[in-house]
């Protein structure tokens, strides 16, 4: 019978109340959780009782919700949906072989929480400012593109777009470098995602001490004051998915 893994904890830190917590979680969620321990690590698992032919969004959300609940109470290595093994021995084997890596990452994320910070162009600002820069770009056309031929006119349009894009990138990099300096005062654990739509200026995940939440909120407030023309959103705390990556043995 397949066994679903949700999280791995450091037994030395969580030994006292994890059994009681999991018992309560089983009762609340109607899922029978079990704890498998080895090498001072404990895996939270449940047996998959029904065979799944297709993934449903509800299943994924339920799984993520369980991991989130455990993460709110304990420092964990969160598993991703689909972390399924075929036997208890597989879990013990996994814990034994990767004990050193698991302990190292658990130490790193201990008493910390992950947050997501996003700064986005407002649609109005994005269009207005870069259209203005478009007309500025027209002023500084290289001599070689001056001329009335169709080919040059085509290249000129491309060049103007290129200049606007360069200005956008420079603008974003400038804000990012300032934000990094300020965020580094709160935490050393910052990861920037590559911007996935043109509206994104910053898409970052940060891992902070639980006690530093107030500092982070103050920082985000200042960020909004500095860039009132942009949209900003801070979400969390999330399980430390982005800071618990391990290459399994």
């Amino acid at each position, binding site marked *: 019978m397949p066994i679903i893994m949700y999280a791995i904890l450091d037994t030395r830190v969580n030994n006292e109340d994890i059994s009681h917590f999991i018992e309560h979680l089983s009762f609340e969620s109607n899922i029978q959780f079990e704890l498998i321990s080895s090498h001072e690590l404990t895996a939270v698992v449940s047996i998959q009782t029904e065979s799944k032919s297709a993934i449903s969004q509800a299943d994924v959300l339920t799984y993520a919700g369980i991991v989130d609940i455990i993460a709110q109470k304990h420092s964990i290595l969160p598993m991703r949906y689909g972390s399924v093994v075929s036997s208890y021995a597989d879990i013990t084997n996994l814990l034994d072989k990767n004990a050193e890596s698991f302990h190292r990452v658990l130490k790193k994320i201990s008493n910390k929480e992950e*947050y997501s910070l*996003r700064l*986005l162009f*407002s*649609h109005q600002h994005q269009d207005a400012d870069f259209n203005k820069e478009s007309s500025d770009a027209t002023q500084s056309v*290289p001599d*070689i*593109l001056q001329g009335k*031929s*169709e*080919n*040059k006119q*085509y*290249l000129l349009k*491309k*060049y103007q777009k*290129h200049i606007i894009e360069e200005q956008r990138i420079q603008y974003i990099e400038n804000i990012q470098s300032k934000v990094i300096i300020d965020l580094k005062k709160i935490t050393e654990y910052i990861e920037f*995602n*590559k*911007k*996935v*739509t043109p*509206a*994104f200026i910053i898409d970052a995940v940060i891992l902070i001490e639980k006690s530093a939440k107030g500092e982070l*909120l103050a920082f*985000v*407030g200042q960020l*909004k004051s500095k860039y009132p023309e*942009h*949209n*900003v*959103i*801070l*979400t*969390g705390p*999330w399980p430390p998915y982005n800071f618990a990556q391990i290459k399994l043995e």
Partner: protein
Amino acid sequence: MQEDKILFYAGSANEIIEELEKIKPGDQGRINATPENVDSGLAKLVLTLIELIRKLMEKQAMRRIDGDSLTEEQIENLGETLMKLENKMDELKKIFNLTDKDLNLNLGPLGDLL
């Protein structure tokens, strides 16, 4: 997103939601090749790669213009070549009923291809 996970937001909630919706995992931006649509799936893949190379050529051309290393004749040739390439791509997109959006593959954490 769960509302209790939003700790702070400022600006336009609608715009934030709109942008976050765009990056939600989904079928958009993926190549959905099946035995029934293998021709159009393959066309999409091939045209996406051609479009990527075309965009790279454009970028390289802009760098050369910035570098001021092109003669008058080379500029004319470059303009003509890039224009013809773009027109040809438009023709191919029409033939296979594809839009620019279709050719922009989502590469997950790496962002969009184009």
